[in-house]
């Protein structure tokens, strides 16, 4: 049984992702975009889970890393001929180079990791409310930089003409990779030490675990995965504006994590798929009978209900067990 547990811990999430991937190939084109959204949401939520779930420290800032990843991958894959015309203010190194699909995803992960390291170094000394507020400031700062600084991106305009390479295959493979990394991390000694600090920071220090160092490690890894997920996202949408990787996405992804169960990989995956399903259903309904805005009202209410009735999420924050 002890040998089977880690396999099951990984197999459950992967099966769900593959099932969603297959579903996306079997449905109509208008439904397919919803399914792809859900799979990319799995990548994002699992990336966020790597930090929040393992450390127990709340962060409102992880979408910053999704944002820089999305813009990095987007800006670097717009065809050179068009880029010179629509993004004239870019730094020459960004303006005069074009990357392929895979390279752009790796760059997105790298940019996410670097930004996470820079902000994590001072902020990972904080916990609780202070950490939440400080990471929220990171989201605000990143959003403003992206919106105003036209040397690194499109500024306040929408970046379009990004190659749409994230179809069923890329979404499924991408989300699988993120889950694999998250699983390997939480089973590694680094992940296990960090989870001990989540349970009791003082007792963890008493057995030699540096809380700051281990939180920073997870924050940077989460930053890299968030950047990568941002790359998948922009290649799915084909265009991106700063508003799409800001408050609403922060709220939605945290709702997914809370609803699924913050402290398990299984919870992150289940929450991402369940809330994405609900979200898509309501988005469709808003086109018909329901008034605009119903979507976020319902998702918010569901999150609040889960917090009241089942605070550890629908999976109980536990990994899949037989």
């Amino acid at each position: 049984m002890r040998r089977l547990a880690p396999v099951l811990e990984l197999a459950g999430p992967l099966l769900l992702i593959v099932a969603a991937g297959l579903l996306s190939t079997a449905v109509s084109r208008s439904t397919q975009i919803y399914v792809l959204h859900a799979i990319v949401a799995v990548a994002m939520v699992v990336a966020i889970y790597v930090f929040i779930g393992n450390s127990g420290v709340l962060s409102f800032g992880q979408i910053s890393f999704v944002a820089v990843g999305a813009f990095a991958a987007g800006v670097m894959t717009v065809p050179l001929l068009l880029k010179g015309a629509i993004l004239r203010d870019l730094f020459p190194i960004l303006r005069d180079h074009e990357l392929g699909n895979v390279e752009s995803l790796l760059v997105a992960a790298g940019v996410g990791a670097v930004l996470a390291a820079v902000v994590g170094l001072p902020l990972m000394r904080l916990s609780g409310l202070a950490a939440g507020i400080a990471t929220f400031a990171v989201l605000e700062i990143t959003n403003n930089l992206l919106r105003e600084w036209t040397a690194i991106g499109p500024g306040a305009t929408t970046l379009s003409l990004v190659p749409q390479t994230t179809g069923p295959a890329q979404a499924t493979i991408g989300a699988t990779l993120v889950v694999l990394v998250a699983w390997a991390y939480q089973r590694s000694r680094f992940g296990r030490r960090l989870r001990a600090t989540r349970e009791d920071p003082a007792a963890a220090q008493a057995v030699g675990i540096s809380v700051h160092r281990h939180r920073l490690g997870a924050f940077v890894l989460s930053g890299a995965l968030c950047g990568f997920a941002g790359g998948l996202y922009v290649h799915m949408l084909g265009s991106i504006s700063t508003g799409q990787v800001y408050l609403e996405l922060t709220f939605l992804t945290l709702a997914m994590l809370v609803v699924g169960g913050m402290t398990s990989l299984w919870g992150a995956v289940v929450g991402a798929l369940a809330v994405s399903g609900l979200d898509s259903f309501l988005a469709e309904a808003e086109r018909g009978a329901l008034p605009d805005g119903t979507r976020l009202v319902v998702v918010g209410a569901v999150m609040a209900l889960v917090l009241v009735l089942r605070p550890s999420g629908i999976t109980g924050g536990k990994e899949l067990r037989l």
Partner: protein
Amino acid sequence: MSTAAETQAGDGAGDVLRASSVSRSFAGVRALQDVTLEVRRHEVVGLIGPNGAGKSTLVNVLSGFDRPDDGAVELAGRDVTGWNASRRARAGLARTFQHSRAFPSLSVRENVEVAALGIGARPREAARRADALLELLGLEKLAAVTASALSHGDERRLGVARALATEPHFVLMDEPAAGLPEAELPEFAAVVRSVRDEHDAGVLLVDHNVALVMDVCDRIQVLDQGRTLAEGPPGEIRANLDVAAAYLGESAAE
């Protein structure tokens, strides 16, 4: 486990945990005043005194969870006063907590394993160490149980197992026998002795159970109102009337 050569080096001046003239005040209340305490490897030192005498403050100052206002802490010849708790733990100083601080959602076994991982052991070595310690402390049947479901006595034993998993040179035990049933005390005393004799560690034992302390300690230091009141072998301490007044009188009144 230490080699014979290391055990011999245990008699050297480097193998000492020492608090030198430490003082610590909280909001004007002097919890510790100019206290000096030494624990050598391979000995059990008892620390007793009435409630509020400064025992826990001293354990916190020694283990790095608190800093002294004055004085220094020395670990194996190095001044560690400025080191944080996790660094001291990696340098061979382990502690248990007054109120059990098991990692609640981890299993008993995982609790011990992660302690070994904490000081840098590889996962395979951590698993091996956990098996040995669970057996030593009679916890092997509870290995898969979630720590939050343990009885009081088992929690105490888990605390000791976790401290030993860091292969410490010194172990500070903060009231490890509190809540243990009377019948389990002889067995617990044997565990403390095996920490000294088989793990070659120095033990600082803080406990209210005078019989246990008298039984297992090689030396006893008595604190009262933040000062050292007496120090010596158990027989001498027992005979000391000041101690009787400060400690036994108090505990009789409890």
